[in-house]
């Protein structure tokens, strides 16, 4: 019976070790494996107590570029010597200087030191020049890559000499040696290699030629995780927005969309915001340098309503000033003005702008959901009914209603949802449009309206403490955030409280 704990590769390594190999390179060559595979198998074998892996270091000799050059063309002294000999054994020094300008000094020095030649007056006379140990070493090192076979003791002087001549460098090299343990030897002897011949990677060839018949498949450990991969996906915040859109559509609402740039008339005046209201300050609202034409048919009625309600005067010029919409209510009222006949059910999800500095709980732009229903016989209880249904659809079970205040609704309500660990969280605003808002546009029936700070909802559902993360995301957050969002996560309450990021 083959040992279940061994793989084919491990057995091959064992067998190779048994034949006397110790180095991964040799084992790899011997058993037709990759070196990395051998080492990997060796580590597994070591864990199983069948081998020990020893780490050795050794000095490795490498020829420098110069050394390599001399190994093929000969040392300078050898070249000079050969020249002298082929020219009769006696040559004037001046000729040599002319012939070997680049290394004549070194060459003569070594000729003298090795006693291969002597200087006689202006002549150099060749003596005997047996092949030196240093020359043999040079040759050997340039032929063989592996310098380990050189006996360091025997060639000590030559090695030092070559080192000094900068023809040779020494490097510390570490390598591993694998040795069988006693148990390993036994297992290696007992194992039959054919018992372990498993298929690892299935190839087309194996399938086509049915090579798999009668063979085993390598077993994998299913507990070991592989490299993490992340699917591309929509932005987590967009998914929440889409969910809200889906709920609104299911409830029969028509989606509307409109301009980011609005006149103050539609953004404020049409909604009965007094012209000296603080929200209209340059401090709180982004203004543009341009103006809009006012809808003639409504201007007088709006003026009358303002003067009646707020006293003082109403300035057409202020109403013409363009702003970045501070809420999408401007779109709702415009839509209602264009569709004054019941029933109307419309919603809008869009960016709104407030003149706020950026910090973890404030942004100058964020998303808002807004919805309106206009029909005969609608009342406040229907508004509460809608809100109940809406928050339930989003997965919030406990909902309560508090009185609220918005300049353009009466009665007004602030729905709150209960979140475990946080308590009651205010999540939107709602109300019935005031007559001052509906009458000028000829809207005769009650308009139920609500707004939700979608960003706040998203922070709650995504467990964010910094709202900037939605718009300046870390790509790793996008990669790792699962598509299925769990229940609202724990957030620090102070962050949510500070997030005054919606009004109706």
């Amino acid at each position, binding site marked *: 019976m083959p040992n279940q704990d061994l793989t084919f590769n491990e057995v091959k390594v064992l067998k190779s070790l048994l034949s006397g190999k110790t180095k991964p390179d040799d084992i790899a060559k011997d058993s037709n494996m990759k070196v990395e595979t051998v080492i990997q198998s060796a580590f597994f074998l070591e864990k199983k107590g069948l081998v020990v892996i020893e780490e050795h270091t050794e000095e490795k000799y490498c020829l420098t570029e110069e050394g390599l050059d001399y190994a093929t063309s000969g040392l300078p002294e050898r070249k000079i010597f050969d020249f002298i000999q082929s020219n009769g054994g006696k040559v004037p020094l001046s000729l040599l200087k002319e012939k070997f300008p680049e290394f004549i000094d070194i060459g003569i020095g070594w000729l003298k030191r090795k006693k291969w030649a002597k200087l006689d007056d202006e002549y150099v006379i060749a003596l005997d020049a047996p092949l030196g140990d240093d020359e043999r070493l040079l040759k050997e090192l340039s032929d063989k890559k592996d310098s380990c076979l050189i006996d360091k003791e025997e060639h000590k002087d030559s090695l030092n000499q070559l080192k000094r001549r900068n023809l040779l460098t020494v490097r510390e090299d570490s390598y591993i040696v694998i040795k069988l343990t006693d148990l390993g030897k036994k297992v290696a002897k007992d194992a039959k290699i054919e018992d372990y011949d498993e298929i690892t990677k299935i190839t087309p060839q194996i399938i086509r030629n049915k090579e798999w018949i009668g063979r085993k498949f390598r077993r994998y450990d299913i507990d070991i995780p592989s490299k993490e991969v992340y699917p*591309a*996906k*929509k*932005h987590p*915040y967009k998914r929440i927005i889409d969910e809200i859109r889906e709920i*609104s*559509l299911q*409830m*029969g*609402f*028509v*989606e509307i969309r409109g*301009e*980011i*740039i609005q006149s103050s008339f539609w953004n404020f005046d049409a909604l009965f915001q007094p012209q000296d209201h*603080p929200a209209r300050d*340059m401090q709180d609202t*982004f203004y*543009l340098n341009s103006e809009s034409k006012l809808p003639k048919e409504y201007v007088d009625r709006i003026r009358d309503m303002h003067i009646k309600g707020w*006293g*003082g005067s109403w300035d057409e010029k202020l109403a013409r000033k363009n702003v970045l919409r501070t809420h999408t209510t401007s779109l709702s009222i415009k839509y209602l003005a264009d569709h004054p006949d019941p*029933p109307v*059910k419309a919603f809008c999800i869009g*960016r709104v702008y407030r*003149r*706020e*500095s*950026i910090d973890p709980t404030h*942004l*100058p732009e964020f998303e808002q959901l807004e919805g309106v*229903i206009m029909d005969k016989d*609608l*009342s*406040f*209880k*229907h508004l*509460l*009914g*809608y809100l*109940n*249904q809406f928050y339930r659809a989003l997965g919030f079970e406990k909902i*309560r*209603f*508090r*009185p*609220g*205040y918005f300049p353009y609704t*009466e*009665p007004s*309500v602030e729905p709150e949802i209960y979140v475990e660990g946080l308590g009651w969280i205010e999540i939107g605003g709602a109300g*019935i449009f005031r007559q*001052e808002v509906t009458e000028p546009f000829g809207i005769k029936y*009650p308009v*139920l309206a609500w707004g939700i700070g979608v960003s706040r909802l998203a922070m709650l559902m995504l467990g964010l403490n910094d709202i900037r993360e939605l718009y*300046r*995301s*870390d*790509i*790793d957050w*996008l990669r790792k955030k699962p598509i299925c969002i769990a229940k609202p996560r724990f957030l620090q309450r102070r962050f949510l409280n500070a997030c005054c990021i919606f009004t109706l």
Partner: protein
Amino acid sequence: MPVVSLPYEDLERLVGVPRELIIEKIPFLGADIERIEEDRLDVEFFPNRPDLYSVEGVARAIKGFLSIEEGAKYYRLYDSDVELNVDDKVIPIRPYIAVAIVKDVLFTESSIKSIMNLQEHLHKGLGRNRKKLAIGLHDLSKVSPPFTYTAVSPSFSFIPLDFDEEMSMQEVLSRHPKGIKYGSIFENFSLYPVILDSNDNVLSFPPIINAELTRVSEDTKNLFIDVTGTDPIVFKALNIVLSAIYERGCNLYSVCIKREGKNIKSPDMSYKEININIEEFRSLIGVDFTESTIIKSLKRLRYDAEIKDKMVHVKIPPYRTDILHSRDVIEDAAIGYGYDNIKSEFPITFSIGKSDDIEILSRKLSDVMVGLGFFEVMTFTLTNRDKEFSLMRREEIPGYIVLKNPISTEHTMLRGSLLPNLMEFLSYNKHRELPQKIFEIGDIVLDEKTLQNLAFVSMHSNAEFAEIRSYLDALFREIGIDVDLKESNDPAFLNGRRGDIFYKNKKIGVFGEFHPEVIWNFQLDHPTIGMEININNLTI
């Protein structure tokens, strides 16, 4: 919205119930609890209820809400022989003034503080930073009536509050902290308003500062109160202050204001009556209220009410500034009834939902992009010239929208293109693993029109033109649209590796390999490719 501090000690004494009950109930009166502190409760009240900007006003409302003391509180007003003359000169500057005398007050440190806070909240909200109205409290014993409200030259001098030397009004505006803060109110006037007594002692330089002479302290027993402003709302504001002080016990006296030949008795603490059909309550709220429920609910909100022939006769307290018509009263009735007691009902209005066309298209486009391995991002629509043009090597185009009052140099205009934001996104994430492939579908604004674009970029060491060309083909193949491509001259991309995209002979976008300088401008150093198209006119 103003955050009003309610010290428990005061609150519990004035209401007569423990703080826990108050904390539990106060949100249902119409308020957001901001903080629960050791010694006090900080509550944000709505701007339509300035009568709740003091612990006294809150106590009055809570007592009604908890049925401890229901219905209207009537204010006994004694007549005094004090007169205040309004000089015609002051009328073009600050025309309105309301005044009253309060006697036999028992001030403590905390009750003075409460009234001062109320004053400040009213200045800020109703008073629009003292422009519309400002309130002054004076120690009556320090001055002698009759009083005059007039206008004097800026060189007129007196000792302002918190100083011990005389200053001209001009100096007050330039040296006194309050003068520096509110002086701009008088930018266009050559005379400044002042309230004087019969000996020409200054009481106040409204709305800037009172005189040191009439400083109110714990020893003050009798008060003279003025509210000046540019709107008749000064009378309501006075009522809010008087009714607050009244909660702690005092006697109110009227003053005769002589103005433009008329005598006006101030304050006017009478209850105005409004008559509302009972059906209006029922139809607006959707609850079949009984007569007694309506009466009870209104009384909890401190109205007095009775019903005759289906008409509810409601008496509105003099401190309420927000009751414009019947709806405002009905809302209060609903609050008195309790929002939680209203049985909610889903509206039966039948309709068929319909998504916006652009949204339908966006979803299809994002399906394709996600399928191609792109992550969706969402970025700001506010941007700046540098990012929009310079970093992209692009010329400024006409039609981009600049803000008049930006809040930071980072956000000075609306974006006309998504690609700069995507590049910026890559630079935020430059330390993250590559490849990075991202897309955005979002609003851009050009020529004041809001449009929707799709843009995507891909950055990795092997990014090159062929890749973006493949994505382009895949995208248009998937949504079934034929486009024409022409060599582009968009300087954001490399010459010879960029194209303009035409749909029905109209240019809708651009694509290509980003110019190395653009990549480097965004502090990136890997080849990057991108594409952007406008999606508004694609018909699929």
